[in-house]
């Protein structure tokens, strides 16, 4: 039981590793995906922008989830996560690049958001115009990106500075200090971004819970992403001793916990609207109960909750090398389905119509995301080697 704690050596990405080429692969896939997405622009304009928004919000959710994860680790002074935190740190460093990825959303605003046609609004939308107008929408987008960029760069710089400056406690302390305010900034920016970019697609509809719903999905995506990358790195012969069953067990618990959290938020949102049955609120679900979308709507509780719930319930599965891999992969797929279900019904078509455009968009934005992720990963150690809590994390055991 009482193993000697060894500081892992395999923490540098060797140039021979496939992972060090991830940025090229990602960039290639991304470019092809984006070309494929916009290839039929003249005939499918509206659908293409929706597909793009779906892909954008999916990858953004993962990056934001990773940012939230890093902040939370500092707020609660976590020790167990020191060996996997760098994965999330690399992923959150994609956030500044999302400014570029936002361009198509910006260009396609009139296809995506009905309220952007200021000249043809009904009375209710006119009343909302002080919030839902182009100028303010642009300013808000700038604010969100500035907040996320600053937070990501701050926590990344401090953490990587610790790599060479072994165990400098002042760096940890400054991250702790900033983390409290970071939670506040993150919470508000994340919420309003989800209102601006997702909820306002159906501008009459509103739900106070919507920001929390998107957050729940983000965390699922982030935990699944971290698990998959950790598994992948170990397959590639890296971090062999650093990340143990215990860490996967914890990631599995979080996957499980957030599956329940997502279901709780999703059910509450649906349930209150269903029970009160007020037309302006039911619009959201009515929309998703027609044109084939009812299949997804009825399937979500089963495939996004019951199946992963019972699968991840078992301690044995969470600790099983393949079990957790399957679980993370599945949860990631379900999270993508969830965002797809949020965005695509607004494109107006039948469920699954022109799904190849959606797939291309996901490859495009996903490829770009992975390219940046791979690029960042090449630049520093694969784990926060200078974290003062590293030993605690390496020796971590569940009870």
């Amino acid at each position, binding site marked *: *039981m*009482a193993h000697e704690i060894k500081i892992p050596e395999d923490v540098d990405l060797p140039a021979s590793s496939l992972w060090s080429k991830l940025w090229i692969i990602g960039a290639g896939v991304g470019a092809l995906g984006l070309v494929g997405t916009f290839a039929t622009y003249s005939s499918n304009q509206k659908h293409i922008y929706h597909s793009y928004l779906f892909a954008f919000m999916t990858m953004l959710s993962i990056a934001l989830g990773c940012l939230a994860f890093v902040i939370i680790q500092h707020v*609660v*002074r976590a*020790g*167990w996560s020191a060996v996997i935190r760098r994965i999330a740190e690399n992923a959150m460093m994609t956030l500044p690049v999302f400014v570029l990825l936002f361009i198509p959303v910006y260009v396609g605003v009139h296809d995506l958001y009905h309220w952007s046609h200021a000249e043809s609004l009904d009375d*209710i*939308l006119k*009343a*909302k115009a002080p*919030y839902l107008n182009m100028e303010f929408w642009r300013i808000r987008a700038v604010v969100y990106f500035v907040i996320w960029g600053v937070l990501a760069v701050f926590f990344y710089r401090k953490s990587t500075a610790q790599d060479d400056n072994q*165990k400098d*406690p002042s760096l*940890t*302390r400054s991250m*702790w200090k900033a983390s*409290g305010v970071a*939670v*506040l900034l993150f*919470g*508000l920016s994340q*919420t309003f971004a989800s209102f601006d970019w997702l909820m306002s697609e159906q501008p*009459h509809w*509103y*739900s*106070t*819970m*919507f*920001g*929390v719903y998107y957050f729940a999905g983000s965390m699922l995506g982030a935990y699944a992403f971290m698990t998959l990358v950790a598994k992948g790195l170990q397959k590639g012969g890296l971090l062999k001793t650093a990340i143990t069953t215990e860490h996967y067990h914890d990631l599995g*618990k979080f996957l499980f916990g957030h599956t*329940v959290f997502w279901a*709780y*938020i999703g059910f*509450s*949102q649906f*349930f*209150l*609207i269903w*029970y*009160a049955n*007020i037309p*302006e609120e039911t619009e959201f679900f009515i929309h998703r109960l027609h044109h084939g979308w009812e299949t997804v709507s009825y399937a979500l509780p089963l495939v996004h909750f019951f199946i992963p719930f019972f699968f991840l319930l078992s301690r044995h599965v969470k600790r099983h090398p393949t079990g957790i891999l399957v679980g993370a992969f599945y949860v990631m797929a379900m999270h993508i389905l969830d965002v797809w279900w949020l965005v695509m019904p607004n494109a107006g078509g039948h469920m699954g119509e022109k799904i190849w455009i959606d797939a291309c968009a996901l490859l495009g934005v996903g490829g770009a995301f992975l390219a940046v992720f791979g690029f960042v990963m090449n630049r520093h150690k694969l784990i926060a080697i200078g974290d*003062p*809590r590293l*030993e*605690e994390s390496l020796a971590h055991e569940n*009870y």
Partner: protein
Amino acid sequence: MATDMTAQSYGDVNLEDPVSGRELLIRGNHDFHYVTEAVCSVAEMKLLDTPKPWVFGWMLAVSVLAFLGSLILYLIWEGVGIWGNNNPVGWGWPIVNFVFWVGIGHAGTLISAILYLFRQKWRTSINRYAEAMTIFAVICALVFPGIHVGRIWLAYWLLPLPNQMDMWVNFRSPLLWDVFAVGTYFTVSLLFWFTGLVPDFATLRDRAQHKVAQVLYGIVAMGWRGSQRHWNHYEKAYQIMACFSAPLVLSVHTVVSFDFAVSQLPGWHTTIFPPYFVAGAIFSGFAMVQTLVIPARAWLGLKHIVTIKHIENMNKIILLTGSLVGYAYTMEFFMAWYSGNEYEGFTFINRMFGPYWWAYWIMMSCNVFSPQFYWFKKLRTNITFSFILSIFVNIGMWFERFVITVTSLANDFLISSWDYFVPTWVDISMFIGSFGLFFTLFLLFVRFFPVIAIAEAKSVMPEADPHYHPPHDDHPAPAAAASA
């Protein structure tokens, strides 16, 4: 009482968070036996030696409880007309009190279950108080809907019992979900609490000097003998109960929020209600734990077991949940405007500047503004300040429920049916009376129960680790090293 005064005052010393390693949860260099002594000494005090303040306090609580009892009799005799409830405010103080107490009842299971699942070991010093508080608070909560049914002798109609009229309850009604949610919560909390108490009752049994105490503690300890084969099942059971209690806590206040939110009333019907109610409940629950623990740790001589670190941690949770509540208020407000629904918009403006503006601003200043002081470590680690602020939070959370319930009902869709709600003396006295019930039970608990989870507190001490090596091998035990 514990006499180790240096260790005592050491508990109030504010230490910097260590960057690597963890701060000792129990301050000072103590062995296991010391923990047993420190916790048991209160419960083992002779009846006649009971401190005067306790006797006085308990008698006061009992007389307030007796007052509540006579008010309930009066209510049953006269009917609910003696309350201030009117038309349209059919839900007045009783529901406000109900939600207030149920909310307080959340911190206990939260500390026991959720902090346990998150491996927050500091919980061991405070979980027992908090669990006891939960159970007593839920009892207080259950009183109000119980007497609100009017014909109290028919209260069993709440349950789905077969009857000669062949009628069944309506499972589509949120009020019935409440019966199940609160009932389940009470039962599960009680079982969870009892399970945690069994090993500590065994400690009291094994140390009992008096035959009566030995027999009584012996019965509730059920013959626990610390067997490893039992611990094996026990730890699993505790873990499972924690896993179930965590979502259960969330579900209870979620269901309470459904009572309001499934309606179409502006200010009640909003989708963020479930998590917002839960955050508020945790917020008020932790505030109540602070209110109870801060004096108790001083009077019972447990300052080195419930240290400033514990208080600071709880203050951080108060800051977090207070801000979450603030987030929910913001979302509600924003959406009231964003919805474009004039009734929604009016309700929120009316809350701020309408006839109940004072209640609204008490709520805002106590719940959202006051916890913001805890951004400063100096204030988080100031014991007097923490105590005062916890009382403000308690007040604020009561007013939150008042604002939600009364403002929405008093000024609803139809202007001709508006009315102003004024509580009667019975309303006010019953609320005060519920504190009598709460403190009667709580003081009994403090006097006769192990107020700290002894076995658990020992298990988080460094020497509980089977691979622990004492710092100096020439000393047999760390305690000896400390006294040398």
